[in-house]
């Protein structure tokens, strides 16, 4: 609901007075895969393990009057011994660029099946344009999960992940 409201009110105009209703949003779709390391503290010791492989499929929306800002609702699948399904609404603040673009990102990852996880994510990424509509994407993120049925009792989970993929602009 929140992503829908965001698109409807911000990107399409109305919530920010200075932003005119979008005549045509810039839309892109990305498919990415990633892994990293997971960290958890138990009894004042920090333990690490490789994060399970995950796949991301996202659609990015950019308002033509707010080129620096991208909203990207994402579907996440965690694999390797499980199939976890989650949703990750992302906001990216992008620096200007032509062939290479860099951004900072904040997100709210929520896994809901078959287990639950709720956290907050921040990171940075870049894209390298290969073609007018195709770009390679890399993103590095840190995530803290603070709530969910998948966590050990009384413990939080931190993840440092890198993600690589392809973006297609429409």
């Amino acid at each position, binding site marked *: 609901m929140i992503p829908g409201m965001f698109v409807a009110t911000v990107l399409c105009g109305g919530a920010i007075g200075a932003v005119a209703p979008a005549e045509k949003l810039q839309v892109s779709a990305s498919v990415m895969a990633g892994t*990293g*390391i*997971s*960290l*958890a503290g*138990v*009894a004042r*010791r*920090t*333990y*690490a*393990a*490789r994060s*399970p492989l995950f796949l991301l499929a996202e659609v990015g929306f950019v308002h033509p009057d707010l080129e620096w800002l991208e909203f990207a609702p994402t579907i996440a699948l*965690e694999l390797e*011994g*499980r199939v*976890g399904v989650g949703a990750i609404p992302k906001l990216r603040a992008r620096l200007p660029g032509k062939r*290479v673009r*860099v951004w900072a990102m904040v997100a709210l990852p929520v896994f809901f099946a*078959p*287990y639950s996880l709720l956290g907050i994510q921040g990171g*940075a990424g*870049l894209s390298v344009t290969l073609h007018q509509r195709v770009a390679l994407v*890399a993103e*590095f993120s840190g995530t803290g999960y603070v709530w969910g*049925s*998948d*966590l*050990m*009792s009384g413990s939080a*989970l931190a993840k*440092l992940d*890198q993600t690589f993929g392809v973006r297609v602009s429409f």
Partner: protein
Amino acid sequence: MQRTGFFVAMAVMAVGLQAACRPATCLRDSDCASNQQCSAVECVARPVDTDGTSGGTMGDDTSGTATAEPGGTTSEFGGTTTDGTNGDGPGPGRDTATASGGRAEDETAGDGSEVSATGNDGSTGASDGGDTTGSDGGSSSDASTDVQMDSGIEIETGGSGTGTGTGTGTGTGTGTSG
């Protein structure tokens, strides 16, 4: 150049952290098998439900059968119960023996109410289900009717649902034959 340095630093930090921290078998429940959970970075078996109060909706009803043997004095519960009903009673008459997984106390399959059947011969009986232990899981819906025939066979029909559970226990039953 600064951008490249940033990403290189991120990668180095990730590798360094992994090397610096202790390796763990698991950090999340989903790292373990479905019948295990992650506790103190080790996969351990999930606690067994011994009182039948958790693990899903009690499967206290499904289509199933309960047998009542004439003249019996002992109710037995055992084996795998998919219907939460499995009991031996004292023959024609009232048979309330039920094994619903965790506990069996004078409740029966169906909607959880007692099976109170009077034999065609007018006899009545009661069976004390005693206490059982076990585990139970599943869900079910009920629209069953209980029929206890004079032959001592009690049949439930109309129920539907699924459930699995195991229960063991002993009970005693008494009956009078009219």
